């Protein structure tokens, strides 16, 4: 697949400039989220060794690597699932020690895991608001504002170009790409400042991958710091601003897009 076939490519330059114009001038050099010298050991298994990466506002930072390279482990450290064995995470330049995904989420770090983003048997709107249900009424009569949930879900998904027949349809009836889009829309709606996506295109066909990549780009253009995990260089290259390549737990490359043509990226991943 040639990366020029991805529609994201053409329009990407324009909004990226816009994102840079946003009023973050004094913070330009401070990454939104940074992993500094992270080592992670599970008993004797060394999953990460002095890994370093940074995600900037308005940029897509791609995290690449072969199976077992440590990609998921690194983002789980960022998302507060595992406290690292060594090293620290910095949010807006300030060290943070999350003890649970909830804490990370409260600080604006939203993570979309490939298989575990949605509850397939539940309706789209129930999934969309799961864990943050808007309510009306007081005391014992406090209840979900179902009308608002349905409406909001519809509006948010329409904005992402997804025409829902019915917000009451179960998420299991959506395509894989649509499900990723719902998860991304949800994260943005709840004010994510960092959006971490673990292999959102892994199980998808070409057409659906393209749509998801558009959403990834779109999220960054709204000023979110996006961390995009994949082991497909052809998916990463058209949307990425910076590429971090992991191999057996170590960072072997950390380069801006200009420095890394897609062939070189692929070669780096497989180990030259």
């Amino acid at each position: 697949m040639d990366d020029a076939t991805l529609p994201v490519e053409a329009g990407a330059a324009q909004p990226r400039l816009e994102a840079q114009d946003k009023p973050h001038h004094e913070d330009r050099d401070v990454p939104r989220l940074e992993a500094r010298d992270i080592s992670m050991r599970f008993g004797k298994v060394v999953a990460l060794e002095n890994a370093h990466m940074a995600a900037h506002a308005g940029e897509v930072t791609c995290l690449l690597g072969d199976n077992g390279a440590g990609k998921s482990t690194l983002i789980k450290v960022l998302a507060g699932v595992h406290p690292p064995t060594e090293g620290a995470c910095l949010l807006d330049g300030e060290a943070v020690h999350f003890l649970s995904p909830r804490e990370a989420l409260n600080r604006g770090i939203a993570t979309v895991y490939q298989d575990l983003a949605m509850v397939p048997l539940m309706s789209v709107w129930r999934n969309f608001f799961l864990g943050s249900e808007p309510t009306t009424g007081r005391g014992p009569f406090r209840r979900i504002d179902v009308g608002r949930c349905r409406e909001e879900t519809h509006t948010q998904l329409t904005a992402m170009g997804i025409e829902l027949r019915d917000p009451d349809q179960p998420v299991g009836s959506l395509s894989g790409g649509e499900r990723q889009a719902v998860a991304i829309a949800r994260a943005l709606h709840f004010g994510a400042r960092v959006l971490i996506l673990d292999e959102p295109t892994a199980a998808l066909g070409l057409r659906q991958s393209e749509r998801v990549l558009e959403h990834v780009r779109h999220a960054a253009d709204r000023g979110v710091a996006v961390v995009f995990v994949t082991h497909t260089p052809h998916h990463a290259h058209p949307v990425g601003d910076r590429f971090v390549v992991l191999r057996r737990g170590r960072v072997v490359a950390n380069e801006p897009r200009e420095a890394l043509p897609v062939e070189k990226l692929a070669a780096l991943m497989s180990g030259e």
Partner: protein
Amino acid sequence: MSRRASGSFTRTFLGPGAAAAVGAILIWLLFAGAAGSAFRSMAGTASYLNAAAPLGILAVGVALLMIGGEFDLSVGSIVGVSGMSVMLLTTELGWSVWPAIAGTVVLCLLIGFLNGLTVVRTQLPSFIVTLATLFILRGLTIAAARGFTSRTQLGGLDDISGYEIARAVLGSAPVGGLRISIVWWLGCAALATWVLLRTPWGNWIFAAGGQPEAARNVGVRIGRVKIGLFMTNALCACLVGIIQAVRFSGADALRGQLQEFYAIIAVVIGGTLLTGGYGTIVGAVIGALIFGMVRQGIVMSGIDADWFQVFLGGMLLLAVFVNRTVLVRAQRAS
């Protein structure tokens, strides 16, 4: 294409609950024919509704729990604990009826809490944990009854102060032979339906059974939800035990045996998935209704009561088969 697929998906999805309703109508027709006017009369109707009510109350708690992805095999034993607790607190410790009921409710909530905490903390299957509590609680109930009174059947609640009001509220049959337990049954079902469909807790219950990891990732505290469900379930069992103690003015340490299975059967017949994440309270109500109709209908038709169990087992198999079809469809779609 996805539009058509999702349409048929939704339709199959409404299937099981609707299937139970159709089943209930067919069973009514069957016994209306086989047992004649005895079944169709007011007295006949009251008899199967009265039989369905206690099981229906249990089924409400069991359905919530099953939708949340867990089982509780100890409900029958909690019924026994609850009735015996009311009797011992009143006849042995000299409490009057209402404080004894309040104490019993607290005791049952504690049991539910411990069931839930054990399941959540150990991450063992709730099937095993509550199979253990089934025996522990039953054994304790019998031991407590014997220890205090050297009997396992106690009576005389009607001599205790507060009994008259308790009887009116919990054990009476105000109109046409219909017991007030039917009101409790439908009240519990209505409340549970509201919680399930209209409150954040309901959302978390579906998620806890459907995909707990996904729910945790968006910050839902699944452990709390599950513990809450075990407590709710214990509360339903407690209510049944208290209603029966008041109604019979006494308790039997063996009361409630096998009810855990009947309740699970009613819930499954009502279309709730054994694996959790999908189900309705209305379905559980219909499941309990079917149970009541079959139990009384067989007797009224003059069929040997042994056939009841055969019938029940057969319906369970049929229901599980229908449910599995739904699950396969759901997974194919996802």
